[in-house]
């Protein structure tokens, strides 16, 4: 049996589902690129941070993997892992929100759609939030709002740069207006972080839309994005309806946003960690020469008690 037949047989055995990637990780040696169809050793794909080495396609990855890729080994300190979502509106569409939460938690082993924590990135202390699209489309409700706010507050209190990896369909409708208000809450925390002259860099990954785009995703001092990620405020179909004509193919892509001045740089995932580290280092103040602090010989000339010595210690 050829490799391709073997793969084709496996595909026949079950329906194609969204967690296909995971199933293949679990039991398959090979993963097929959903973009160019090329088969890659799953182990190699993982080493290449889930970027297809043939076509450069960025496979969707989730929060654990993202933290593993960005944070130095054994330095990750998760924050607020005990915060649990509630069902304040007793919301029920085709399914009750409470049931939906329980089922999603069981399936994803996540409490909600974001993981936050402190750690070092290439030796640099950072505060990091990573949204997880598996959890109800990365939607933002009270838990996402609270965890991100606390993480940003920690970043401000400890003078750390803040990084948020975004992946979200927007506000979580099942929590109604409480969700919308999280946009304001997180933006308020970012205002304080900014007032403390600290660096905030969101990383926009596929997809970053709706209320997340209209709040913390667009508030970076520097905004980075993964190649080809969909980034937008309004849904593509809604925009199409207002336009009554077809939208250009690149509409709402990371590249489109960069070309229109809303994203600073497109960074391939394999270079993300080093780029973030580079940017953090570029924003670190130059260490003041010790002599200026110790002697201040030229400060005002009134310090008569200090012997004048120019250039000696330099």
């Amino acid at each position: 049996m050829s490799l391709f037949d073997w793969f084709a047989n496996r595909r026949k055995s079950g329906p194609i589902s969204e967690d296909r990637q995971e199933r293949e990780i679990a039991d398959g040696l090979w993963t097929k690129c959903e973009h160019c169809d090329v088969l890659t050793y799953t182990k190699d794909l993982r080493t290449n941070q889930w970027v297809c080495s043939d076509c450069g396609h960025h496979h969707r990855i989730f929060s654990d993997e993202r933290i593993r890729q960005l944070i130095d080994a054994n330095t990750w300190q998760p924050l607020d892992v005990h915060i649990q979502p509630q069902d304040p509106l007793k919301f029920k569409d085709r399914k009750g929100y409470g049931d939906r939460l329980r089922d999603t938690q069981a399936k994803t082993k996540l409490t909600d759609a974001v993981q936050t924590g402190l750690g070092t990135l290439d030796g640099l202390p950072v505060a990091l939030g990573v949204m997880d699209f598996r959890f109800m489309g990365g939607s933002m409700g009270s838990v996402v709002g609270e965890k991100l706010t606390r993480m940003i507050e920690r970043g401000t209190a400890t003078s750390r740069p803040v990084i948020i990896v975004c992946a979200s369909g927007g506000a979580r409708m099942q929590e109604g207006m409480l969700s919308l208000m999280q946009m304001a809450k997180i933006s308020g925390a970012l205002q304080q972080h900014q007032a403390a002259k600290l660096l905030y860099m969101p990383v926009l990954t596929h997809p970053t839309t709706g209320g997340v785009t209209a709040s913390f995703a667009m508030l970076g001092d520097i905004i980075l994005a993964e190649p080809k990620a969909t980034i937008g405020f309004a849904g593509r179909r809604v925009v199409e309806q207002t336009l009554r004509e077809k939208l250009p193919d690149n509409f709402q892509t990371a590249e489109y946003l960069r070309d229109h001045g809303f994203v600073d740089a497109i960074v391939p995932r394999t270079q993300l960690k080093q780029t973030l580290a580079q940017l953090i280092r570029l924003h670190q103040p130059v260490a003041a020469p010790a002599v200026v602090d110790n002697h201040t010989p030229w400060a005002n000339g009134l310090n008569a008690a200090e012997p004048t010595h120019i250039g000696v210690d330099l």
Partner: protein
Amino acid sequence: MAPPERKSILLSFEKPLVELEARIAQIRELAEENDVDVSAQLRQLEARATHLRQEIFSNLTPAQRLQVARHPRRPSTLDYIQAITDDWLELHGDRGSGKDDPALVGGVARLEGRPVVILGHQKGRDTKDNVVRNFGMASPGGYRKAMRLMRHADRFSMPIITFIDTPGAYPGYEAEEMGQGEAIAYNLREMFGLTVPIVCTIIGEGGSGGALGIGVGDRLMMFEHSVYTVASPEACAAILWKDAGRSGEAAEALKITSWDLKQLGILDELLPEPVGGAHANPIQAADILKQALMEQITELSQLAPATLQQLRYQKYRQIGVFAEAA
């Protein structure tokens, strides 16, 4: 100020009321023609009409409230500004995008002697006007104009009053191209940094991020029949129920009324409306609004700028419902 085209914009639940009012008019006419004294009967019928109106409007479903909030005759931002200010000059432009957004208006005004900056979404008063106003759906330039005016207020120590009345930020091609998300996001953050009092009022429809883009303040007020939504009930029904026709259920589930928002700890003050809604008596509605604004601004003006900022942050900081296990 009798509305001339009242019948054409009748809300379905107002029907029994209008029928009763028509009967009263008919009896009055007949009595005049035949010179009969029916004043006792008329008084009785009018009392019944008042009672009926009260009953209808105090038992509205969320979907019906949404209809009242979107009523074409509901007073708009410019209507209220004209009614409550002693002096007013509209200012235009965001100084960047190259065109003024008529869906978001603002300017300088005097409110009972006090200089203020007022801004808000502007819906059209009729179909033609609505096309010009883009149905109150602001563009990035509108949100940037709002921020420009708010900074102006900050610089001259003028309290900021915002009126929210929009189905949502404009979801158009150009709006996306010009950074609708960024424009709103920027306002959310910067409004936390302003040092003057900010009072936001939902006068009609508070549609999602487009409403919030001028809605971060020290006080949030809301007219009784106004609504504030995370997503329009129509969109929510289409996404969660896969059926836009079930927007009534979505309106119920989303908790969008002023009472819901009060209960969720989001709303600071609920403003009562004249019986029959603000459109039934705009002058009275404007009086209620003016009174509430004066009280809030007087109170907030006594706080030091740093305190104001801190309290504003705390106000939003505590919104959210979650459990925290030890």
